[in-house]
């Protein structure tokens, strides 16, 4: 009997050892698989009057947009919306913008709270923060947070995928990311494919202490499971990491700062494919405890969208760095407290949660929350001198 039990333990231990030998981020093929050899593009400040309404008027409150470029160049955006943030009627919404189109498609619900609850077989009170990503096989993934009890700090991350670029969705999978009742992991920044076929997903923790993490997620068809987690050392009070790979081994991460001190955008760097990260340090740009977004412009330059105020989200601005965040040149404000004609009845102005993306054709797009009423989209124009130079 005892020998038999020991034999079973050995067998189970071999199986368990095999499952717990996953590579960590930055090692053994778990490096990002992103084209970082980009042609340099120049951008100018867009006019907010040119903004497109992405979210339509289906629900009164919307927030936290993300977007991906599909195979034919169509943009697909995701955001959460309902009667108010945190309400039970909040769903994850989606809409598309075809190449050359002048307006976004009618938005529709991608995942509702009820869908999520049924798929993960547990009570869900609210949904938020969708982040879209395309894996190495071209499958569209969406990660979003759900809360079963308490506030946003009680969030868990969920994954759902689509084989037809967002027309239909597979079952929602709840990812296990934390040992403490699997709570307090949230997602905001863009994911990236890894060389071994997995997905690297920047996330952040909010309960007791606030800090960023990176998950390694393995996918198999429409199933996703967390197979690794990395917590960069010394990065407390910085959340919502936005990672910009700049070479096969180098990347810069920009953070929202949540502490009472050093209310600046924080920056961290890696030169070993994400295996280790420098301690986040404040840069010249203010951060009023608000999300930031970045895009690689090529030629060693990175564009950042941020709120250029110490204590409000009334000014959404753009700045460019050519030294990985050490120094910045401000392009200017996209949205300011100067009210547009359609803002006269809005009590509290807010332009927040920007999402920047560069498409394969080199166009740069900015999407953001407009007063919690709309998700707006701006194509960043080329500067006039760049246009003139391009004209034969």
């Amino acid at each position: 009997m005892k020998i038999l039990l020991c034999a079973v333990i050995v067998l189970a231990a071999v199986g368990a050892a095999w499952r717990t030998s996953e590579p960590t981020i930055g090692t053994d093929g778990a490096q990002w698989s992103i084209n970082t050899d980009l042609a340099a593009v120049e951008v100018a400040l867009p006019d907010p009057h040119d903004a497109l309404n992405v979210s339509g008027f289906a629900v009164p409150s919307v927030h936290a947009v993300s977007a991906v470029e599909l195979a034919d160049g169509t943009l697909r955006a995701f955001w959460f919306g309902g009667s108010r943030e945190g309400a039970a009627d909040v769903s994850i919404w989606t809409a598309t913008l075809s190449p050359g189109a002048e307006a976004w498609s009618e938005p529709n619900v991608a995942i509702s709270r009820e869908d999520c609850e049924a798929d993960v077989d547990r009570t869900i009170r609210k949904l938020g923060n969708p982040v879209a990503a395309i894996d190495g096989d071209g499958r569209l993934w969406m990660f979003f947070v759900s809360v079963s009890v308490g506030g946003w700090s009680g969030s868990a991350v969920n994954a759902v995928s689509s084989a037809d670029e967002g027309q239909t969705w597979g079952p929602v999978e709840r990812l296990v990311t934390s040992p403490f009742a699997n709570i307090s992991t949230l997602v905001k920044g863009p994911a990236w494919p890894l060389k071994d076929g997995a997905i690297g997903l920047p996330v952040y923790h909010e309960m007791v202490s606030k800090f960023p993490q990176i998950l390694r997620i393995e996918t198999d068809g429409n199933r996703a499971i967390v197979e690794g987690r990395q917590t960069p050392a010394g990065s407390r009070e910085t959340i919502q990491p936005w990672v910009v790979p700049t070479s096969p081994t180098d990347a810069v991460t920009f953070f929202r700062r949540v502490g009472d001190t050093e209310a600046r955008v924080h920056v961290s760097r890696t030169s070993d494919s994400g295996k280790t990260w420098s301690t986040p340090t404040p840069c010249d740009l203010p951060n009023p405890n608000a999300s930031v977004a970045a895009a690689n412009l090529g030629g060693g330059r990175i564009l950042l969208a941020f709120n250029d105020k110490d204590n409000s989200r009334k000014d959404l601005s753009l700045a460019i760095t050519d030294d990985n965040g050490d120094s910045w040149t401000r392009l200017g404000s996209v949205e300011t407290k100067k009210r547009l004609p359609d803002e006269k009845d809005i009590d509290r102005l807010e332009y927040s949660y920007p999402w920047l993306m560069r498409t394969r054709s080199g166009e740069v797009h900015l999407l953001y929350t407009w007063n919690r009423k709309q998700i707006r989209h701006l194509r960043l124009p080329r500067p006039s001198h760049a246009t003139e130079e391009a004209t034969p």
Partner: protein
Amino acid sequence: MNPSDLIALCAHLLAVLVLLSLVGGRSRKAWRIRFAILVGCILIGLPGVQRGIFGDLSAASIVTCVGFLIGTATGQVRTLLRITFVLALPLYVTSLSGIGPDLYALGFSQWWLVVPLAVFGFWSVSQERFWITLWVLLALVMTALPIHESSNLWDALVDVPAAVAGLVAWCIGWKASGKASST
């Protein structure tokens, strides 16, 4: 519903049954009432609520529930819970604070973690502490096979309810030893 969801919901039902067994006697009538309440709990979706709050239960909780219902080997189950608390404490402190090494991450990527666990399993077999053997074995099987929502070894070993029960077991033990030394 996939098999891992079914197993997880059954484990939560088992936990409800344990809580119900704390009330009333051990008569047949009392058990009938408990099962009637259990059916009510299923109908109102209580296991789903529990799962939403605590996630999938670990081997520690499942073995404790079974041990409690059978009512034998309470000493072994108490030891199991105390060990669970000792394992969970540094795991939770590092995971919630972000300070120190990310112990939880080891459960994804460090295969050697199963070696001390297996050795502990062999020890429990040699000492005929079969409830502890069952805990180790179930945790290893949960990690090896996709029957737990997590692929992390720690999630198969410990969870919050078992860690809290472990803390209670330590407190009861300290109180009892304090009383014994004062008499």
